[in-house]
């Protein structure tokens, strides 16, 4: 998909600029996903359609881009689809290294949290 790493990261950083930003009032510890280094805030709300709308932010711009990428896929979906989602695409675009639980950008924890939201809303 990308010819070199620079293009890939420039693309990720661009994606971050379109991230649906979390409202400042929700940018609190309760919505903080703890990664070791960069911080990610995530907020979920159920729309009238029953789908879940995610907003988020991060203090690191690469993480922000990766978060935007995941929200593009999991955002505005039905709760059950979110909890069951297969994130194979991440591997396909060569970004799986960022998703391993040992990586310190908190992204793996974020996806887990999104799926938890999906599961919780699916049962309501």
């Amino acid at each position, binding site marked *: 998909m990308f010819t070199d*790493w*620079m293009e890939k*990261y*420039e693309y990720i*950083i661009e994606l971050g600029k379109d991230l649906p930003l979390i409202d400042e009032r929700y940018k609190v510890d309760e919505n903080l996903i703890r990664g*070791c*280094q*960069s911080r990610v805030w995530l907020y979920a709300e159920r729309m009238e359609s029953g789908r879940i709308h995610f907003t988020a932010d991060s*203090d*690191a*711009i*690469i*993480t922000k881009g990766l978060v935007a990428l995941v929200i593009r896929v999991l955002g505005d979906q039905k709760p059950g689809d979110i909890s069951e989602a297969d994130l194979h695409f991440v591997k396909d675009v060569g970004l799986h290294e960022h998703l391993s639980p040992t990586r*310190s*950008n908190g992204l793996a924890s974020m996806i887990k949290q999104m799926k938890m939201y999906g599961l919780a809303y699916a049962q309501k």
Partner: protein
Amino acid sequence: MELATFTDIQKLRKQFPILHQQVNGYPLVYLDNAATTQKPLSVINAIDDYYKRYNANIHRGAHHLANIATEAFEEVRSKTKSFLNASETSEIIFTSGTTDAINLVAQTWGRKNLQPGDEILVSMLEHHSNIVPWQLIAEEKGASLKVIPLTGSGEWDLSAIDSLLSSKTKLVAVNHVSNALGTINPIKTLIDKAHAIGAMILIDGAQAVAHFPVDVRALDCDFYCYSAHKMFGPTGTGVLYGKKELLEAMPPYRGGGEMISSVSFEKTTYNELPHKFEAGTPNIEGVIAMGAALDFIHSLDWSAMEQHEQELLSYATDKLSAISGLRIYGTAQHKVGVISFLVGDLHPYDVGTLLDKQGVAVRTGHHCTEPLWNFCKVTGSVRISFSVYNTIEEVDAFIAALHKTLSILK
């Protein structure tokens, strides 16, 4: 003394197999030596050799292999005694590392000697490992922590020390060299001041021993500790040096084999130093390989290496200072080869990620010194740290990679 030449360094690098590889299509530039140094072949081979030729449990077997292993293990204690210029081998306790050594002192010396109202003095530069063990025992004993503040250059504010030391101070626990900023602290001054008021002093030497010689008798510190893996040795081993009379008066810490003299359900008596503090089968291959690391260090020309490292430090400092918007944290007069920095408002994680894409290994984050970064009013930094095998060419490669990183992030 001759300055280490380019050929010397290339010869030295040949001893480190890991350095000769490509990472993400670029030659590896390893600048995370304060986290752990790489290992020379002699250290790697020592582990291999132990398991191939003389693996046996030590101190108790009456057979041939046990005797060779015990001898090799105890020989490292003698080498360590010489390395630190301690008085006796019984003053050298093998631990799993610096953290383990500090916890040992906190849980034995601290448990026995601390009283409600007592104070432990640390500094703002401490690694969490030299804060949390003291907090745990202080909470249990009703003691409290006091903190030596810093100046803007990342050095102890010496003018504050006298007012922080009092008859309540029972122990001072500070690092010799700051892992986050590289500051070499004036520990001799503090050791003398601590002793003048009757306090004990522990030095965390984790970041010092791979950079310059340490003489515990000249320093007159009560405890000194370090990890093997930051000085070319394996992980999971380290050393606690303590003055013999202090170690003898300290109660045992962990119970188990090795540390006993005799056991019965009515009364157990404890082994003599140093075994009293080495319960269970130790990390035998680790200690033996730590001995090989000491031999490697002895093979180096220390003054040439110190000079080489200072050359790398000043070259990199100049190059970094020329980058617009870059701030260096820690500008002490006496530093080892460590530079912590931030560029503009860029997150260290972003910078570290893109440097890694170009084969450059750096550390990003708080480096286990959160109180220091709170004091600096940032959440962390990008840190580069040098070892003897780093070259000026690697600094150039790092600077070029940093420029590329900044062009992508800005």
